[in-house]
C-alpha cells in the first residue's frame, strides 16, 4: 500500500512539473511579448518609444535568456510565489485566489446537479422495460455531450432571463445568478456521467451475481440499487477526474457567457493580453486540481476493491525485473 501511495504521489509531482514546463515553453514560443502587449495594449496602432519598451522589459525580467527566466520562475513557483500579473501588477496568487470562490461555487453546484441528474438518468434508462422510453433516455446523454455549452447558456439566458425575467443574465451575486450557469455547465458533465454509468449498469445487470440475486427472489428495485449500482459505481468513479477537467474547461465558456468573475474569465483575459505569469499560474493551478483529484480517486480505489493495489504493485514488480 505504501509503495502504491508513493508511486502515485511521484507521478503527480511529475505531471505538475511537466505542465509547468510545457506551458512555459508554449508561451515562450508565442510571437510578441507581454510588455509590448501592455504598452501597445491596445488597439489602435501604437507607436511606443522603443527605449521605454526596453526599460519595461528589463523591469519585468523579459530581457534575460529563456533558461534564466525559466529557472527564476520555477524557483519562485516552488516557494509558492507565482509572480505578479503583467496587466494588473497584482500577485498571481491573489488573482487566482480572488477568482477561486466563484469558480468553486459554480463547478460545485454543476457537479452536484450533474451527479444527481446523471445518476437519475442512468438508473431510469436501465430500469425501464419500455423499449422506446429506454432508447429515448439513452439518446439524451449523447445529445447533452454534443450541444455546444455556449449555445445552451445563451438559450437559457434568453428564456429565463430576457423573456420571463426570472433570473439574472449575468454577474455572480447570490444564488439566483448561480442557477443558470450551473445548469449550463452540468449539461455536458451530467451527460458524460450518465453515459458511463448506464453502460456499466447494463454490464453489471448481466453479471451472474445479479441473476443469482434475482433467482433468490430479490425485488427489481433492490437488485438495481443495492447490487448493480454498487458495482457499477467504480467505473463511474474513474471518470470523476475527467469530469473535473470537463468542469474547469467548461467554466471558461460559462463564465464568459454569464459574465461571472471566476478562474475561467481570468484565464481568457490573461491569454488575450499575454499576461504570462497569470496564464502560467492558471495552468499550474489547473494541473494541481486535476492531479489532486486523480490522486484522491487512486487512493480511494483500494478501499472499494483491494485487488487494485495488488495488481498495480505486481505489474510494477514485473516491469522492474
Amino acid at each position, binding site marked *: 500500500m505504501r509503495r502504491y501511495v508513493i508511486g502515485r504521489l511521484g507521478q503527480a509531482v511529475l505531471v505538475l512539473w511537466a505542465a509547468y514546463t510545457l506551458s512555459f515553453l508554449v508561451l515562450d514560443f508565442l510571437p510578441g511579448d507581454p510588455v509590448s502587449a501592455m504598452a501597445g495594449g491596445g*488597439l489602435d496602432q501604437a507607436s511606443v518609444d522603443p527605449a521605454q519598451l526596453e526599460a519595461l522589459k528589463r523591469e519585468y525580467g523579459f530581457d534575460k535568456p529563456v533558461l534564466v527566466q525559466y529557472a527564476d520562475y520555477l524557483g519562485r513557483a516552488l516557494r509558492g510565489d507565482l509572480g505578479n500579473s503583467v496587466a494588473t501588477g497584482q500577485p498571481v496568487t491573489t488573482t487566482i485566489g480572488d477568482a477561486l470562490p466563484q469558480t468553486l461555487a459554480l463547478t460545485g453546484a454543476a457537479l452536484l446537479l450533474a451527479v444527481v441528474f446523471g445518476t437519475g438518468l442512468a438508473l431510469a434508462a436501465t430500469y425501464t422495460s419500455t423499449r422506446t422510453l429506454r432508447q429515448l433516455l439513452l439518446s439524451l446523454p449523447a445529445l447533452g455531450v454534443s450541444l455546444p455549452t455556449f449555445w445552451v447558456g445563451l438559450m437559457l439566458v434568453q428564456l429565463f432571463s430576457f423573456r420571463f425575467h426570472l433570473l439574472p443574465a449575468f454577474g455572480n451575486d447570490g444564488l439566483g445568478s448561480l442557477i443558470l450557469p450551473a445548469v449550463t455547465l452540468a449539461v455536458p458533465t451530467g451527460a458524460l456521467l450518465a453515459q458511463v454509468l448506464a453502460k456499466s449498469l447494463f454490464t453489471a445487470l448481466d453479471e451472474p451475481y445479479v441473476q443469482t440475486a434475482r433467482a433468490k427472489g430479490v425485488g427489481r428495485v433492490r437488485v438495481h440499487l443495492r447490487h448493480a449500482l454498487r458495482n457499477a459505481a467504480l467505473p463511474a468513479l474513474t471518470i470523476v477526474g475527467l469530469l473535473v477537467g470537463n468542469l474547469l474547461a467548461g467554466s471558461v465558456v460559462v463564465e464568459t457567457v454569464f459574465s461571472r468573475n471566476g478562474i475561467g474569465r481570468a484565464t481568457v483575459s490573461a491569454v488575450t493580453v499575454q499576461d504570462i505569469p497569470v496564464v502560467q499560474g492558471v495552468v499550474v493551478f489547473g494541473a494541481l486540481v486535476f492531479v489532486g483529484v486523480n490522486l484522491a480517486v487512486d487512493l480511494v480505489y483500494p478501499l472499494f476493491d483491494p485487488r487494485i493495489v495488488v495488481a498495480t504493485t505486481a505489474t510494477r514488480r514485473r516491469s522492474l525485473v
Partner: protein
Amino acid sequence: MRSTPRSGRARGSLAITFAAALVLTACGSGDGATSDGATDGIARPGGTLTFAVGSYAGCVDPHQVGSNDTIYSLRQIVDSLTDQDPATGKIVPWLAESWEVSPDAKTFTFRLRPGVTFSDGTPVDARAVKDNFDAALKLGAKASLATGYLSGYVATEVRDDLTAVVSFGQPNAQFLQATSTFSLGLVAGTSVRKTPDQRCTDGVVGSGPFVLDGYLANQSITLVKRKGYNWGSSLWRKPGEAYLDRVLFTVVPEAGVRTGSLASGQVDAIGSVSLADEAALGAGGGVDLRARANPGVVFNLGLNNSGPALRDVAVRQAIQVALDRRQIVDTVYPTGSKPATSILAHTTPYYRDLGAQLTFDQARAKSLLDAAGWRVGGDGIRTRDGARLSLSVGWFANAATNQPSLELIQQQLRAVGVEITLKELQLAKIAQVQQAGDFDALWGNITRADPDILRATYSTGLANVYRLAPGPLDAVLTEQAATVDQAKRQALVDQAQELIVRDAYVIPVVELTTALGVSKKVHDLGFEASSRIQLHDTWKS
C-alpha cells in the same frame, strides 16, 4: 494608442444566431428613432445608471488605460484642464479658466479656477498640475498616450497657486487639445506618489463629478456622485453636481447577453454595438442607437511605401480608387458609420473633405495599373517582369469588423488584378512589425482629436512606420505643429491631407464609429470630442 472596441472577437456567428433568436421572441415593435429625451419632461436628479461594457482593461488609472470600455467609467472621475467641443473642435475652459500659448507654441500658461478640490479634500492647484505632468512622463510606456502628448516636455513652472506654465523644447501645438483628454486628467498628490501598479489596483483620486466607489476585476466599476461638485466643463448644461447618484459599469463580454440585457431592460446602456446586434435592439423599441465617428486617423491600409510595387505612386493610387468604400461600410459596419473622405475622420478638428478623390473608379484603377506596366496574367492577377502584384496585409483581431472588411477589400482588389493575402498578427507583435518594416500593408486606425496625429504617424523625421520618402509633406506637418493661428493651421493641415490622399501614401477606407445602445429612459448621454462619453448631464426618467 488604443480605443477600438474589443468585444465580439470571433463571436460573430454566435452573435448573429443569438440576434435572430432575440428578434423571434421580442415582443412589440418600435420606431427606432433617436431622441434626446426632450419630450420626456424635466431632468431630475437621482438614480443609478447601469452600463454594460464588453471588456475590462485590468487597471483603474485613466493615465494608463486607453480601452474605450474602461475609459467610459474612468473619464468620469478626473477633470481636465480644458475641454473640447465635440461640434466645433474648439478648446474651452474646464479646470483652467484661461490660458495663453506662446507664438512659437512652446509655452502654455494655464490660469486655474479657484476653489477646486480633489475628492480627498486637497486643492487642485498649479503644484498639482506640475506633479501630474512630471509623473505622467515617469509612467513611460505604461502611459503611452500621455507620454506621447508630452513629448519634448521640459518643465512645469508653478508661477503662483493658480498659474502653471508648461514648456516644451520644440513647438507642440497639439498639447492644448491634449490637456482636454482623460490621459492628462488631474489626480491628487496621494495618487501621483503611488507606483504605477498601485495606481492600477487601488484606483486614483480625481476631482471629477463622480468618485470611484469600488471595482471588482473583470466584473464591475462603481461610481458615486461627488457631493458639492461645482467646477464642471463650460460645455456642460447642468451647473453643479451631476444628476445621477450612482453609475454601475458592469463587464458583460458576450455581445448577445449585452444586447439582450439592454433589450429586456436589465441594463440602461451598452457599449460596442455591432451591426449584428442592431436587429435585436431595434425590435424592442425601447432603445436608441447612438453612433459617432472616432476622430483621428481612419481605418486604412497603411502601405509600406518602400515596397517594390508600392514605391510606385500609380500602384498606390490604383488601389485607392479600386475600393468601393460604400459597400464595405454597408456590409460590415454599424449603422451610422461613414466611408473615409480623408485620412482624418470627419469628427477631427481641421478635417477636410476629399471624398471626390476617394470615390470608387474601377476603370481608372485598371488604366493606372496598365500604364504602370502591370499586365493581367492567366489567373487574373497582374504581373510585371515576372513579379506578381501580390500584397500581404497584416491585421490584428482588435475589432470584429476587421476580418470581414479585409475580405471585402481582397475581393474588390482582385477585380482589378491585385492579389491580397491576409496575415493575422498577434496584437503584442505590433511594435516589432512596425519597427522592422516587415509588411506590405497594415490595417488599423488611431483615435485622436487633433490633426497633429498626422505628424506623429507620417512625418519621415519620426518613427516613419510606413517608410515614406522625405518630401514636401514633412515641412507642412512640422509647421502645423508650430502654428497657433487657427486659420494658418487649417491651411497647413488641409495641405497635409491633400498630399497624403493625392499620393496615396496610405489608403483611407472607413471611419471607426463608436456605437452605443441606450435605453429611452436615459437622457443626455452624449459623446465628447474623442467619441467617449461624459455622464455629468445624463439623467434617467
